């Protein structure tokens, strides 16, 4: 009896292990097939040089040829569609699909990528894009003006596909796109095109292959998984599983010749995040080369001999990626009163948030809310005149002057009409850094007599309240680093305000100021690179944000990045001798110099 039980048991255990063993293998089978043409093609190229047998895909990747990344995928990779902005697998744009330009935020520079040269406006309404010669898709066919034309026309509201993609906004001022020759495309705009926005789309829009995409139905263009997509970039999709995605280097990539540089890693294995705790564990085990996770104990890691490096060797360690601001619902009392908002701005101890909630790994925001990369646009006189800092006494004074008094002696001020004030500041439950932050904010507010309490709804209701404008106070950081401060002001002054559709970002507080809206439009029409004009307009916008407090910028969320020198070296850092790239694998960041970081990665000498 005992013996047979044991046998049955062992059998079951072995069976279930085999079951687990089979499952990923089964998942992997089609992947092997998909990469097969690539292997064949590789040999075709290689055979000309060295007569070698086709290299089979190894079962175990050599450590010194593999880059392990993490921080982008929070679930099994499911979409390889570059138009699935929020959900495409790590590297889909940047490593597999490429853009005409990439943007270097640290140098404020557009770098021609698929395009052969800097942006060239042949006249104020005509932008001419010349492509590099010799770019091929991974199926061997050349990437031409037709592909660019096709890609941009996908979003044409009057075109064949009418796919409402990210860059559909281009058509607000685009009159036509014309093919000049096989490598040249002319974008013809109506009068006063939005140069800033155009520039924004040029480094954000992935170019796809006309031949394969034109066969697709519109719903597959916007929502298809595009599992075996053909790209033009330095890496190819190789395989994926529940907890990872593997990219393999495209040894026929055009950039190898064009830049004279080959991306260091033969393979990139992107690990799906379980939690930051697990990510930290992997870093400690030496299993991650580039972790773009928010790891709380960064100071410990950098200083504790773990071989972990961040962009800055000291606080704040991280580059600033976006601004976290207190967003305010301007439709309700007393938040509709600018003086009340002003009092809140003075009441909040941002340094305490930085030190306590973030242990110093973020920077306090400039009162203008402009990211450090836009420092040059900050009107210092304006900041000196209107800028605020933590000053509870002044906050109390402002409240008193504006007529907010504690009528019922509950230590909190009441509305001017005597009705009590009870404000709630929210962030999603589980977003611990923000939770800690809004606790501090509430305490700060209470200290000056504003009755404010933190609340942590789940993400859905929290987000819903913003879209519907039913929240009171909240933290938001949607506005990311980009090529233009217009994107930030567009977020603050999103117009129209009546109905903030699901897909539109910004101005959840419904701040209504036609002058500001107009300035945002003017800013959009400034030519790329015309810093003086940008400064002139943003200066006026800064005056509005500094005196009207539509949002209260608090701190800059970091571009979380922890790198290890154990296997790969020559990482970007703030050191003078190092490359100043963005060390990020996040969506939208490979095409902000992340890819250049890969080109310069070197295997560690010891390997």
């Amino acid at each position: 009896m005992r013996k047979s039980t044991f046998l049955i048991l062992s059998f079951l255990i072995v069976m279930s292990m085999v079951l687990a063993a089979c499952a990923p293998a089964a998942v992997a089978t089609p992947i092997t097939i998909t990469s097969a043409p690539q292997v064949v093609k590789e040999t075709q190229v290689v055979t000309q040089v060295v007569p070698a047998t086709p290299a089979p895909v190894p079962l175990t990747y050599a450590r010194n040829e593999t880059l392990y990344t993490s921080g982008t995928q929070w679930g099994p990779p499911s979409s390889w569609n570059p138009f699935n902005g929020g959900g495409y697998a790590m590297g889909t744009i940047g490593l597999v699909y490429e853009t005409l330009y990439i943007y270097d935020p640290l140098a404020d520079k557009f770098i021609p990528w698929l395009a052969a040269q800097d942006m060239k406006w042949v006249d104020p309404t005509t932008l001419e894009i010349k492509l590099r010669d010799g770019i091929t898709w991974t199926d061997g066919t050349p990437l031409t003006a037709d592909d660019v034309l096709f890609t941009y026309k996908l979003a044409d509201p009057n075109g064949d596909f009418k796919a409402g993609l990210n860059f559909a906004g281009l058509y607000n001022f685009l009159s036509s796109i014309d093919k000049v020759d096989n490598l040249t495309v002319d974008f013809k705009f109506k009068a006063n095109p939005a140069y800033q926005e155009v520039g924004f789309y040029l480094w954000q829009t992935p170019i796809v292959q006309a031949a394969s995409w034109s066969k697709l139905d519109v719903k597959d263009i916007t929502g298809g998984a595009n599992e075996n997509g053909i790209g033009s970039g330095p890496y190819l999709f190789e395989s994926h599983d529940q907890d990872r995605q593997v990219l393999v280097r495209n040894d026929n990539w055009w950039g190898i010749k064009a830049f004279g540089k080959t991306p260091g890693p033969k393979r990139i294995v992107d690990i799906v995040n379980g939690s930051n705790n697990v990510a930290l564990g992997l870093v400690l085990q030496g299993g991650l080369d580039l972790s773009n996770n928010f790891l709380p104990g960064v100071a410990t890691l950098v200083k504790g001999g773990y071989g972990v490096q961040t962009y800055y060797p000291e606080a704040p360690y991280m580059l600033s990626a976006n601004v976290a601001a207190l967003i305010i619902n301007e439709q309700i009392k007393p938040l509709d009163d600018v003086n009340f908002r002003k009092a809140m701005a003075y009441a909040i101890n941002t340094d305490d948030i930085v030190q306590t909630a973030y242990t110093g790994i973020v920077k306090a925001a400039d009162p203008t809310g402009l990211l450090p990369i836009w420092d040059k646009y900050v009107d210092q006189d304006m900041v000196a005149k209107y800028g605020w800092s933590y000053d509870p006494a002044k906050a109390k004074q402002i409240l008193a002057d504006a007529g907010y008094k504690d009528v019922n002696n509950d230590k909190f001020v009441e509305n001017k009409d005597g009705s009590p004030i009870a404000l709630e500041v929210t962030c999603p439950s589980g977003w611990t850094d923000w939770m800690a932050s809004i606790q501090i904010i509430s305490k700060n507010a209470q200290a000056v007599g504003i009755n404010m309490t933190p609340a942590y709804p789940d993400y859905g209701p929290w987000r819903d309240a913003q879209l519907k404008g039913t929240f009171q106070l909240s933290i938001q950081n949607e506005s990311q680093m980009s090529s233009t401060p217009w994107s930030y002001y567009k977020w603050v002054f999103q117009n129209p305000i009546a109905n903030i559709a699901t897909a539109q970002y910004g101005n959840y507080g419904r701040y209504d100021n036609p002058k500001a809206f107009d300035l945002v439009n003017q800013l959009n029409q400034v030519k790329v690179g015309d810093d003086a004009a940008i400064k002139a307009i943003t200066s006026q916008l800064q005056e509005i944000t500094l005196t009207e407090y539509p949002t209260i910028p608090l701190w800059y969320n970091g571009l979380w990045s922890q790198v290890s020198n154990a296997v790969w070296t020559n990482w970007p850092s703030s050191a003078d001798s190092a490359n100043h790239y963005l060390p990020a694998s996040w969506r939208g960041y490979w095409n902000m110099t992340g890819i250049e970081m890969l080109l310069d990665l070197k295997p560690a000498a010891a390997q």
Partner: protein
Amino acid sequence: MAKYFRRKLLIYLLTFIIAVTVDWCIPRFMPGNPVDLIISRAGLKGSAVSQMYTFYMQAFGLDQPIWKQYLNFWIAIFHGDLGTSIFLFPSPVTKVILGAVPYDLALLIPAILTSWFAGNNFGAFAARSKRLDNTLLPLGYILTGTPYMWLGIVLAWAFGIAWRIFPIAGGYSFAMRPALTLPFIWSLFQHWFLPFASLFIVQFGGWAIGMRNLIIYELEADYSHYLAALGAPKRLVRKYAFQNAMLPQLTGLALQLGVIVAGALATEVVFSYPGIGYLILQAIHNEDYFLLQGCFLFVVIGVLLANFIIDITYVIVDPRTRAGMQGGAS
């Protein structure tokens, strides 16, 4: 026996219907419209929004009358169609779940079976004498009181970080491609071990205590006394007591399944083990109600199936149910 199975089947059927109905409600009564979320995730803009909105409303059948949606849901279930994941757009929910299920089975089946057998044997062993009972069993109580995930994290830290014996994340080595080779299976095993161990340890304690209590009752049962009076050796008496105590433990297993599955979900989260537990958590955090719906349905079906297997096993091992005398008692 026929009556017994009829009743059982009725209960399963009802449970299934109720579970499916609850499940159907999940995306429909959540705050916010799931289609809005898809569109917002896809990053669509402008006129495309309303276009896609209509498209998805139709695709998910959300534009139809409620009763028809409910009917369609049933039809879809029998076609294995659980809709499209929002968070893992555009993967079909069924595909996402099927990718995760093998890991769950690999974790749950061995953990449940080994802990059940080992715990029962250990409990029977400890019930042998007062000394063993007082020295070994407190361990069991401590183990059952331990939250799975807490133990999991302690194990991960000790064996993964401090001693570096086991990996702490993933289903198999991140440097490997799946293949039926020894190193790969070894890698699977290494990644499986800690999640398995944390499930095993906690459940082991529970079964040990259960068996200890039951076997003490059984040893005081009349048949045990009769055997002793007829001079049967202790071994035989214990054997009978053990076998008879296994029956309530089998029922206990059925009762515990839900709890065990819950524990597995938490454990998977701790070890980033790519099973359904991790998916459920991500589905919640990402408001992916279709995925949540699918996971819930899968868990329910899994538990129902397991219950059914246990019921059949019970009938096989317990003559009383076969004799038809116990029809309604379980």
